[in-house]
């Protein structure tokens, strides 16, 4: 639009005039004096005309500015009477503007056209304003328009001031030049022509700048209208968004599985969602107005904002249920605060927790029983075997006694008694009597043999009984330890018990047992039952691990007991046996895992469980298959000193 004005506006007229001047000057170049005077006059006239047009343009801008101001006041005005006057004023100004633009004649047609558009836009704004729609939007529009318009007007004024000043200056300068030219020769014509041309160009530029600013303002007013429309569309969009968001919030409120309570500043219920109705078992609306403390007795609701707490919620019918409640303050700029409480019925969870705890307790007990069963199984196996030998020995002794040649002795003694009177003749002369001394000798040999055999058998029997006694004693001490958890015990004795409970298999299988008890305390408070259970398991495992060793490999189990720097008691069972493959190192503790053909995978599992129950740990290390294994049991050592003190007193 700016470019069009530049080509066809006032500046075009100026260009034509200047060009005409130059042409006429060229034609009358030969007639120095007369022509120069004419040129100077005509140039002065042209300059004056230019100035007049510039002034006219300035007036136009001034009028436009006033109209703009009128429009702004109109948009701000709310009083109908004043409004009417303002509209009239605006109309008058527009008519004035229209006339001024018409004054430009043909060259002002483009300005007129633009002004028409501006006028329409202006009318639209007024119409919209008068309909009262989007009052806020309009107000915002005007608020935005104010500084903008003022800025534009200031600019236009500045530009016009400048152009007026410059035009005056240039015209004065040109007149002076004309005076000087009057006394100069042909060269002055060229200088004058150049000056006129330059002056014309400068004028053209200045006017173009003035009209450009007007066009720019017109453009701004047009965009003002467009912006207003965009604003309206946006307001509609925002309204829809808010409605959608509200619907969404409502749906969440309704669908929530947790109870949602909206509370006022006095902690009274404003709103209850369906889940809350279900939890409190009441009809919709029944709880509205109730204070929170009647429903959920919370000491000081404000102090638990944002922190979920557990509480006992009360239904309207007086029953109660465990609940978890979290209160949040809603973000509101003005007015009294609003609180939203989210409430969850945790009856089910509480029951599940209780069940889980009971289950855990049962598992602990089951694993303890399983551990005891492990020990009992070992005991049964050992006792069973020893009892077998005891039984056989007893039977052998019984048979030998039953078949004893003692009866023959009785018979011989009977014969001798019969012949008490003539014993010497009976023994020397009687056929049968003569055999007696030899018979007694044979009988003595036989009885001696019997006696020795029975002695040997009885000795085996006694050994067997002693063996069973040891196993039973170990079992009894186990039972005694079990009843007295954390009683002061001698760790060395526990280790010895664990060895005894192997029932002599260690000696029988040629396994060397090394004991390293240097760092072992005399007495300490530990759960002897559990420690023994674990040690029995570890020693049994170690025994089985070294048993398969080839004859040239050492079969050795080393038992180490020592206190650690961390204040724990450490038991180590080190064997030179089959070792553990790296991939099995952690799995060996898992339930049901076993590498033994006759294992059930419960031993190490329950041992590890027992260690954990004591607050200790059970670890396995091995450099791999065939390289032995080390099992380390660490249990916390509590108040060893006090235990010793008690021991001294008793």
């Amino acid at each position, binding site marked *: 639009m700016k470019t069009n004005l530049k080509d066809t506006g006032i500046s075009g007229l100026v260009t034509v005039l200047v060009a005409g001047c130059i042409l006429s000057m060229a034609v009358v170049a030969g007639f120095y004096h007369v022509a120069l005077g004419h040129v100077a006059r005509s140039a002065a006239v042209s300059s004056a005309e230019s100035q007049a047009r510039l002034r006219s343009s300035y007036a136009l801008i001034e009028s436009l500015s006033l109209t703009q101001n009128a429009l702004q006041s109109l948009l701000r005005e709310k009083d109908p009477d004043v409004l009417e006057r303002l509209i009239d004023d605006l109309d008058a100004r527009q008519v004035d503007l229209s006339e001024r633009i018409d004054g430009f004649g043909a060259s002002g047609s483009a300005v007129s056209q633009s002004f028409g558009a501006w006028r329409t836009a202006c009318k639209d704004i007024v119409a919209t304003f008068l309909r009262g729609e989007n009052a806020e939007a309009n107000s915002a529009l005007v608020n935005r328009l104010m500084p903008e318009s003022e800025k534009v007007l200031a600019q236009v004024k500045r530009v016009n001031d400048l152009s007026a000043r410059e035009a005056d200056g240039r015209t004065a300068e040109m007149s002076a030049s004309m005076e000087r030219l009057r006394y100069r020769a042909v060269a002055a014509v060229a200088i004058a022509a150049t000056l006129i041309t330059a002056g014309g160009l400068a004028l053209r530029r200045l006017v173009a700048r003035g009209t450009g600013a007007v066009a720019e303002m017109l453009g701004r007013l047009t965009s003002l209208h467009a912006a207003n429309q965009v604003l309206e569309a946006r307001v509609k969009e925002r309204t829809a968004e808010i409605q959608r968001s509200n619907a969404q919030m409502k749906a969440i409120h309704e669908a929530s599985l947790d109870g949602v309570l909206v509370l006022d500043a006095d902690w009274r219920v404003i709103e209850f969602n369906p889940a809350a109705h279900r939890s409190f078992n009441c009809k919709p609306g029944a709880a509205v107005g109730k204070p929170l403390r009647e429903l959920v007795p919370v000491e000081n609701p404000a102090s638990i904002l944002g922190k979920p707490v557990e509480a006992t919620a009360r239904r309207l019918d007086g029953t109660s249920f465990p609940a978890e409640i979290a209160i949040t303050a809603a973000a509101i700029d003005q007015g009294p605060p609003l609180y939203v409480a989210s409430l969850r019925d945790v009856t089910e969870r509480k029951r599940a927790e209780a069940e889980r705890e009971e289950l855990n307790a049962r598992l602990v007990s089951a694993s303890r029983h399983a551990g005891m069963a492990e020990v009992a*199984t070992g005991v*049964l*196996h050992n006792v*069973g*075997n*020893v*009892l*077998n*030998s*005891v*039984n*056989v*020995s007893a*039977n*052998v002794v019984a048979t030998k006694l*039953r*078949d*004893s*040649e003692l*009866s*023959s002795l009785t*018979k*011989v003694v009977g014969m001798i008694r019969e012949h008490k009177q003539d014993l010497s003749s009976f023994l020397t002369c009687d056929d*049968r009597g003569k*055999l*007696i001394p*030899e*018979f007694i000798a*044979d*009988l003595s*040999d*036989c009885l001696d*043999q019997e006696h020795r*055999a029975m002695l040997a058998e009885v000795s085996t029997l006694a050994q*067997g009984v002693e063996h069973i006694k040891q196993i039973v004693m170990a079992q009894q001490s186990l039972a005694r330890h079990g009843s007295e958890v954390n009683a002061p015990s001698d760790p060395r004795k526990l280790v010895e018990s664990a060895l005894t409970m192997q029932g002599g298999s260690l000696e*029988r299988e040629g396994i060397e047992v090394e004991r390293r008890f240097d760092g072992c305390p005399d007495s300490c408070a530990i759960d002897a039952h559990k420690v023994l259970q674990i040690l029995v398991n570890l020693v049994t495992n170690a025994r*089985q691990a070294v*048993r*398969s060793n080839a004859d040239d490999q050492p079969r050795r189990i080393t038992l180490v007991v020592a206190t650690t720097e961390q204040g724990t008691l450490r038991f180590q069972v080190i064997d030179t046996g089959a070792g553990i493959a790296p991939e099995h190192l952690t799995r060996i503790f898992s339930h049901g895992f076993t590498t*033994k*053909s*006759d294992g059930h995978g419960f031993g190490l599992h329950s041992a590890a469980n027992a260690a954990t129950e004591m607050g200790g740990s059970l670890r396995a290390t091995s450099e791999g298959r065939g390289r032995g294994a080390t099992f380390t049991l660490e249990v916390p050592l509590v108040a060893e000193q006090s235990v010793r003190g008690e021991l001294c007193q008793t």
Partner: protein
Amino acid sequence: MSTDQDKRRILIIDDNDAIHNDFKKILSSADPASSATAAKLAGAKAALFGGGGGGGGGSDVAAKRSAQPAASRVAFRLDSAMQGQEGLAKLQAAVNARDRYVVAFVDMRMPPGWDGLQTIQRLWEVDPDLQVVICTAYSDYSWEEVSAKLGLTDRLLILKKPFDPVEVTQLATALSE
């Protein structure tokens, strides 16, 4: 007197020495030295009390029994193996030598090698006619589990430890007939 070849061969597979001794006490005949002493005494008794060839004193049961030990009791030859593998080797050798075992007493738990069931499976692969007695101090397997592994068979009996010597004698005698 019966020769060694007449005695029935019995194989005992158990990881416990004491059990082997128990079997020996129950199933072996008396050692030669004590047999000799007993025989000499028996002869002297016969002469002294007149028990001669006809067996004079009918009430003298003890004398009669001790005078004829070999006749009233079946004689056995016992072999011991501490592990299933060793037992299998002995059985194989016996089969090769055509001097078979008639009965095998097998322990159920014999770590670290094969357990009783595994051992029995291997034994039957070599000698399907072998009579087997499983000895166990407590039941690792139920009878159903044993049947499932070894099949329903009349060549298998179970003997619970601690066992009675009479049971062992009966089993050994009955199974070797």
